[in-house]
C-alpha cells in the first residue's frame, strides 16, 4: 500500500545543540496535537533528538522536517533528517549497537530504529545522510 505524504508541518534548521532541544520540543508538540500517547510522544521526541544530534556531530548543519503521512486508514508522523555532511561509509556497521566513529555510545541510529515503526536510511560517503522514520498512530 502506498504512503501519501502531506505538506511539511514543521521544518527546523539544525546548526547547534540548542537546535536539537528545540527540534525535539517542537516535534513533541506536533505529536501531541496529532493525538499520540505520552509514551509515543517520548519516543518521537527522543528519536528527533538522536537524529538531530547526529547532524550536529557529523555534518555540522542539516534539517529536520516533520510531515503527516497516510497509508490506507493509518495516519502517521514522518520525520526526515537530512544533511550534506561526510555521509556514512559503512551503513551496516552504523546500524549496529555500540558502533561509533566518535566517542558516543553508538546507540543513536540502531536505538532510533527500535523506537519508530518505519526506518529508512540513505547515505553514501561524501553525499550526506538522509534518515526517514515514521511513527503510526494506533
Amino acid at each position, binding site marked *: 500500500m502506498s504512503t501519501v505524504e502531506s505538506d511539511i508541518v514543521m521544518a527546523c534548521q539544525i546548526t547547534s*545543540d540548542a537546535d536539537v532541544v528545540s527540534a525535539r520540543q517542537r516535534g513533541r508538540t506536533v505529536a501531541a496535537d496529532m493525538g499520540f500517547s505520552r509514551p509515543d510522544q517520548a519516543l518521537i521526541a527522543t528519536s528527533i533528538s*538522536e537524529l538531530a544530534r547526529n547532524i550536529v556531530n557529523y555534518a555540522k548543519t542539516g534539517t529536520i522536517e516533520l510531515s503527516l503521512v497516510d497509508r490506507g486508514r493509518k495516519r502517521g508522523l514522518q520525520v526526515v533528517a537530512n544533511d550534506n555532511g561526510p555521509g556514512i561509509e559503512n551503513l551496516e556497521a552504523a546500524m549496529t549497537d555500540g558502533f561509533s566513529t566518535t566517542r558516543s555510545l553508538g546507540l543513536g541510529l540502531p536505538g532510533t530504529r527500535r523506537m519508530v515503526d518505519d526506518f529508512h536510511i540513505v547515505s553514501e560517503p561524501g553525499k550526506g545522510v538522509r534518515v526517514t522514520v515514521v511513527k503510526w498512530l494506533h
Partner: protein
Amino acid sequence: MTIRVPVLQQGKVLIVSVQDALSDSDLLNVQQDLLDKVFSVNATGVVIDVSALDVLDSFGTRTLSDIAAAIQLRGAKTVIVGIQADVAMSMVLLGLSLPRVATALDLEAGMALLGQRHVA
C-alpha cells in the same frame, strides 16, 4: 545562552534538579559544576533529580553515567531519581539502562538510599 543549574547542599549530600531544556553543552556544564562542588565540599552523596525531563536520550544518559562514575571514584554515591515512565521506556528501546547507577522513585527515596532524611 548558557543555562546554569543550581546545586543544593544538605549536609554532605548535594541535590541537583536537571531541567528539560538543557542542551548537550548545558549538560556538560552541569557535570562540571556538580563535580567541582562534590570535590569542594567533600560530598558523600549526590542526588540527581530528572523528574522534569521528558526526554533522556543517549547523550543525556551517557552524561549521567559519566557523572556517577566520576563521583564514585571520589568515594561518593550517586542516585538518579524521578525518571518518568515514558522516558524509562524510550531509554530501554534506545538500549540505555544505567546498569551501574543507583536509581530511586523520587527525591525522598533517593535521600533514604543515601542514609539521609530529606527535610523539605
